[in-house]
């Protein structure tokens, strides 16, 4: 009993960074929340329900933290702290945008965060202690699940703002990211040798595994192309290239990836009017300033209005940017919190990614390593594509900003990924497992 208690105290101490980060984040978010609140409603009449998102945030985080301590979770203690901050920032941003409706009953988005955290907890507890390895044999099934999912969307989907959604505005296409990362990790670990080029830069094209990947990778890409989800295609191919590189350690894959990305860009530009329009709006935004480039130019105008320090939380005018709460939330941050505020948010993202890649590097199992790398790459690419798009550094791809953009399915998928990453980060602890287990695992490794 005493031993159990001391173990609990040990875990409590181990998870201290997470707790501290959360406390500081909560205070920062709470101050911001009150600022927005005062801006929005004035002081009277005060409705206590307006504080519910903040309360939900606080309680959800406390519950997650306590649960992890009670389950003696020894996964990375920093990662979740950073995620707490970004999630809180998302709440703040959505509350500011008015999409976090606390009085209406129709809106499900306020349940997105608790649901996402719950999902994350389940995933952590399910796959911790090396149990994620059960996903390895499911790799190919994940590929077929992806194709089935995309097919379903294609058949039953409804077009909204250029993208396909299932009835009820659910966009399960986000899940594709997780599925395909699992598939790639499993597949590449199994057939790694086949992808190591014998001569030159390209792998042997006669290999069955290479042909399988080429063919079956094209099917979901084609479905995505038909759905005009260019951003997702870019994202998934970036992940593919990074994972090929991680699995084989051949720099040639990066070069090949860059070249094929260039070719793909040209192809998209030449073949699709949709891609062409986005490309032109990117290259020469002032050619059609009041038409195709309206959104990006309004976003840049908002950021310029914000300048270095920003106009202050709740004082900006995001209503002038179309879809500000979702894809263009970064422009709102730029306007209200300024260049400095954007920098702080970016630092948190960077800490998240570095921490994520460190976790990946420390995993002993190749599958785990690839899976973690894939998950972090997905998040990093998504962030880069979104921020790059909003700042006009890259063409617009219609990809959401993880944790902060409005959108239930995006948030759920992000938390699913983070949950998996955290589960992966827990080392199979030698002290805790018996000798027998260790031998069993060692055999499994071989």
């Amino acid at each position, binding site marked *: 009993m005493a031993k159990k208690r001391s173990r609990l105290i040990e875990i409590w101490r181990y998870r201290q960074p997470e707790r501290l980060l959360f406390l500081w984040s909560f205070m920062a978010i709470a101050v911001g929340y009150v600022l927005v609140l005062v801006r929005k409603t004035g002081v009277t009449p005060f409705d206590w329900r307006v504080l519910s998102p903040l309360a939900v945030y606080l309680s959800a985080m406390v519950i997650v933290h306590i649960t992890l301590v009670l389950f003696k979770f020894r996964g990375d203690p920093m990662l979740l702290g950073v995620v707490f901050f970004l999630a809180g920032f998302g709440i703040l941003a959505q509350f500011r945008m008015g999409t976090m409706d606390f009085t209406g009953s129709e809106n499900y988005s306020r349940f997105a965060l608790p649901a996402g955290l719950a999902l994350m907890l389940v995933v952590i507890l399910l796959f911790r202690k090396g149990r994620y390895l059960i996903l390895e044999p499911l790799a190919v099934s994940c590929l077929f699940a992806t194709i089935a999912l995309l097919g379903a969307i294609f058949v039953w989907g409804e077009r909204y703002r250029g993208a396909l959604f299932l009835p009820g505005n659910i966009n399960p296409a986000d899940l594709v990211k997780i599925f395909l990362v699992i598939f790639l990790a499993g597949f590449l670990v199994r057939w790694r040798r086949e992808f190591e080029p014998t001569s030159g830069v390209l792998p042997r094209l006669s290999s069955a595994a290479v042909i399988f990947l080429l063919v079956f990778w094209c099917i979901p890409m084609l479905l995505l192309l038909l759905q005009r989800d260019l951003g997702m295609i870019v994202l998934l191919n970036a992940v593919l290239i990074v994972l090929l590189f991680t699995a084989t350690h051949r720099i040639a894959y990066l070069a090949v990836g860059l070249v094929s990305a260039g070719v793909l860009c040209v192809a998209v530009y030449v073949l699709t009017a949709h891609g062409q329009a986005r490309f032109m709006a990117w290259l020469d935004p002032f050619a059609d300033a009041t038409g195709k480039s309206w959104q990006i130019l309004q976003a840049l105008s908002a950021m*310029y209005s914000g300048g270095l320090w920003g106009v202050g939380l709740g004082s900006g005018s995001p209503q002038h940017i179309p879809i500000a709460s979702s894809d263009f939330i970064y422009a709102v941050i730029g306007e209200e919190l300024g260049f400095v505020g954007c920098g702080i948010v970016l630092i948190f993202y960077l800490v998240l990614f570095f921490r994520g890649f460190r976790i990946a590097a420390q995993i002993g199992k190749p599958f785990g390593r690839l899976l973690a790398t894939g998950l972090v790459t997905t998040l990093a690419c998504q962030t880069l594509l979104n921020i790059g798009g909003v700042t006009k550094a890259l063409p617009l791809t219609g990809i959401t900003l993880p944790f902060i953009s409005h959108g239930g399915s995006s948030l759920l998928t992000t938390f699913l990924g983070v949950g998996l990453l955290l589960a992966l980060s827990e080392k199979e602890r030698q002290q805790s497992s018996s000798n027998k287990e260790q031998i069993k695992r060692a055999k499994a490794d071989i």
Partner: protein
Amino acid sequence: MFVAVYLYQASWQLTGFARPAFMDFMRTYSRRPINPAREMARGRILDRNGVELAVNDPSDNRLRRYPLGRVFCHLVGYRDPLFGLDGLEAADNAFLSGYSVATADEVGRFSLNILNHRTAEGNDLILTVDARLQKIAADLLKNKRGALVALQPEDGSIVALVSSPAYNPQELDTALSQSDKGASPLFNRALHGLYPPGSTFKIVVAVCALEQGFHELLDCPAQGYIPPGLYRQPIRDHEYYERQRKGEPWPGWGRIGLDQAFARSSNVFFSQLGVRLGSTKLNAIAERFLFNKPLVLFEGSSTTISAKPSQWPVLQEQDSGSCAQQAIGQGALLVTPLHMALITAAIAQNGELFAPRIAVRTPPRLLARLLHPSIAHQIKRLMRYTVEHGTATGANIKGIPIAGKTGTAQASEGEDHSWFVCFAPLEKPAIAVAVLIEHGGYGAAAALPVATELIKKAQEFGLLER
């Protein structure tokens, strides 16, 4: 990659004021209550005494106001949301918008603009031009086609630069849509107009002759001079044609020296002199006097304003006909008014040519030593003699010793172009002026009174004290 994106973000978020198209978009289409683009103040353009030449419209800073309108249209140019930028507004756009970083002051302004860009300000551009003199010059050229350049020989400072006809920079749409034949009000004749220099070019030929130690008398008969070669048309003095029109006989000048020939502007003398000097010497002096080279008027923070290179067709060894023609400023030889003004200034400054200087912040710079001071001294004497006893006696006014040279250049069609280049006062030159009037006839008739009047006014304004 994230750092690159973040830096790129800075180029919009922090230094967006360096993107004119973006600022125009924001001014027009951003309905935010906080709109720094609308509050941003572009720097003013001022003359040497602080007279405002270009300011922002107090009600809508998208619009520029030009208090002196047409007077400065070619030099200052315009900044228009629809038609873009021209003139100094274009050349010094970065400085005026506050994002140039050439000097410590400018860096300071730039940094301040980044820190607090809601009140981003540009720098004021102060010109060496005197608005009073510029206005006088513009009035003198009104209803004429031509150009005037006046500068200070001691440092190259431009005090007036006018091209006529002018347009109203406030009403660009009418100015741009006009289709009047040949008037081309948007065309800056002072910098880009190429004209045969006529007799004003005899200054350059005289320099060449004096450098060769030429001090002979040449026979200048009434029937003119026929240079050896294929082209057998005689070159005659214009007195011959004048007398002929009146039905009177003219005996010709007889045997005269350089001083008489210069003062009388004898084509017969100078064409013979040109053939004697030969193609090599003439080519060399033309090159030294910066022919066929672009003359930079202003190196702005964004672009450079240059004059068109004057055209000196390089003479072939046996081509005496062209030697004769180009020695009297005809043939295929073409110059810009700015170039003629600079040559005059270099003579006045004893051979030192200072680079033209339009902004006070540009330090004076010696561009070249065109000729030896002793030669320059002799040319100055010749030019003074021309005013006292030669073709330019109209410029012999009381109180101000002017030295000058007239020019009557045959145009390809219509009346001759009228030139007058001069400087004053003789001993301590403070101003050099070149005036060109398209199809104005005799240099003494059209261009000379303009220059003389300008110098009188310059004295009134105290510009002749050095």
